[in-house]
């Protein structure tokens, strides 16, 4: 645990020392929130749209923006930099568990996402959004999105380990972006066209988005939350197994 704490603290220091890396994670999701709400809010007026539960369309859109922000991690690119500079070998030559090599930076992503998610929700509150599930729901929302951030960035980190190239990592991460959009991000799943509904149903991100949306619009829904957390746990387990295998066989 000492080694994981040491590596996590280092990654956090790195995050604090590169505040410019936070800019896209904050600006782009807020930009999409404003643009999407601006374009579609009149189609979905609060009074005549049952799925909004009396809130503005911004409340419906907020989970998409939170998930987008959660996907803007820097862990993988820092890792590539470290591989290219030789420091990753220095860490590998230390008698530490390979798991801590994988988790050190992801812990920093988790903490960073807690701050970003909380900030975005607080910024959204004056625009007619409230968290129906209350303060506890707000905390669950922040933790859920931040856990997903760590898992998602873990998969990008996996690409970094496999390719050891910044360009390939950036390209590889694009593979994951469709997952954020093949979701019910504009309307609930049942209102999607049939092909999109099928795609969204098979997309694990859908269940995290729906769980987050439930917390904002409806309150606590155990089934929806369970699906969201199961998706995060299963994806996280897969990411860890693949990452460990990659680090153990890393030459």
């Amino acid at each position, binding site marked *: 645990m000492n080694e994981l704490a040491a590596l996590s603290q280092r990654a956090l220091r790195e995050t604090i020392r590169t505040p410019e890396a936070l800019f896209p994670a904050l600006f782009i999701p807020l930009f999409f929130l404003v643009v999407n709400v601006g374009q579609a809010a009149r189609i979905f007026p609060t009074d005549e749209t049952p799925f909004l539960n009396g809130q503005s369309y911004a409340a419906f859109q907020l989970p998409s923006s939170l998930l987008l922000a959660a996907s803007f991690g820097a862990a993988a690119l820092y890792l590539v930099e470290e591989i290219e*500079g030789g420091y990753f070998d220095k860490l590998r030559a230390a008698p530490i568990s390979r798991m801590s090599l994988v988790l050190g930076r992801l812990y920093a992503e988790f903490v960073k996402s807690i701050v970003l998610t909380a900030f975005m929700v607080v910024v959204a509150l004056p625009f007619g959004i409230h968290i129906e599930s209350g303060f506890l729901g707000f905390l669950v929302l922040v933790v859920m999105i931040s856990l997903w951030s760590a898992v998602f960035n873990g998969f990008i980190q996996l690409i970094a380990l496999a390719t050891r190239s910044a360009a390939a990592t950036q390209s590889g991460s694009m593979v994951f972006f469709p997952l954020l959009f093949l979701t019910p991000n504009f309307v609930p799943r049942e209102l999607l066209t049939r092909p999109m509904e099928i795609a969204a149903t098979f997309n694990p991100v859908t269940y995290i988005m729906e769980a987050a949306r439930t917390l904002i619009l409806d309150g606590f829904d155990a089934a929806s939350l369970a699906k969201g957390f199961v998706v995060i746990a299963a994806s996280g387990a897969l990411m860890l197994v693949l990452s460990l295998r990659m680090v153990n066989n890393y030459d």
Partner: protein
Amino acid sequence: MTTSAPSAIRAVGLKKTYTGRDGEVEAVRGVDLDVAQGEVFGFLGPNGAGKSTTVRMLTTLMTITSGTALVAGVDVAADPNEARRKIGVALQEAGLDPRQTGRELLTLQARLFGHKTKSAGARAAELLELVELTEAADRRVKGYSGGVKRRLDLASALVHQPEVLFLDEPTTGLDPASRLTVWEEVRRINGMGTTVFLTTQYLEEADQLCNRLAIIDHGGIIREGTPVALKAELRERTGMAAEPTLDDVFLDATGGTRVRSAGDVKEIQS
């Protein structure tokens, strides 16, 4: 230094095979090594000869295709973490984190080798003083010169007082003054009883520092012995009039020749 002391490094039939674009590549083809405790052992060879691959296998950074390697009595393939506790590694690039300060980097390294936060800080301060980096300790690494980075890298490899220190081309790219500083460090570290395994392309460096050396080419060891013995063997075999240098030994071993023209030395591979 004699080889009758217990082995710090013993490798038998060490092989590394890659599958590249053009099929299978044998980077290291059955290397045998026996380095005694307390030695400074030089590992020389042309570019691509297999030096770094051998070091990476001995330091647990690369899987071994076949053969065995014991470092400080520990099988590096069977018990890599135990081996890592006994070895220090400074690789070709001074592998440092540019966003941390020198002090933070050494403190982290100490924590990774089991120190608690407080004792890690104390160990970092001790090492900074040892390599005379106390003044630069709280500046970020990215602002350090090549020589300072190399000294910090050396310090980070010593954080746990390793029994065996691997230095992969520690002076490549350094100016002459920094190179001399690193040499002094290596002598001092060895003076404290640490075995040093050093790869280098600078034959003068090997001559200055190493008790014994091996020359590797095309993945296999082609010469091994003390610098004095290797030079004597060459002189006796070729009947050279002048005392051969380690350069002559190296060129003879790797099949190179050299011609002198207008005062410049030009190496030509045969």
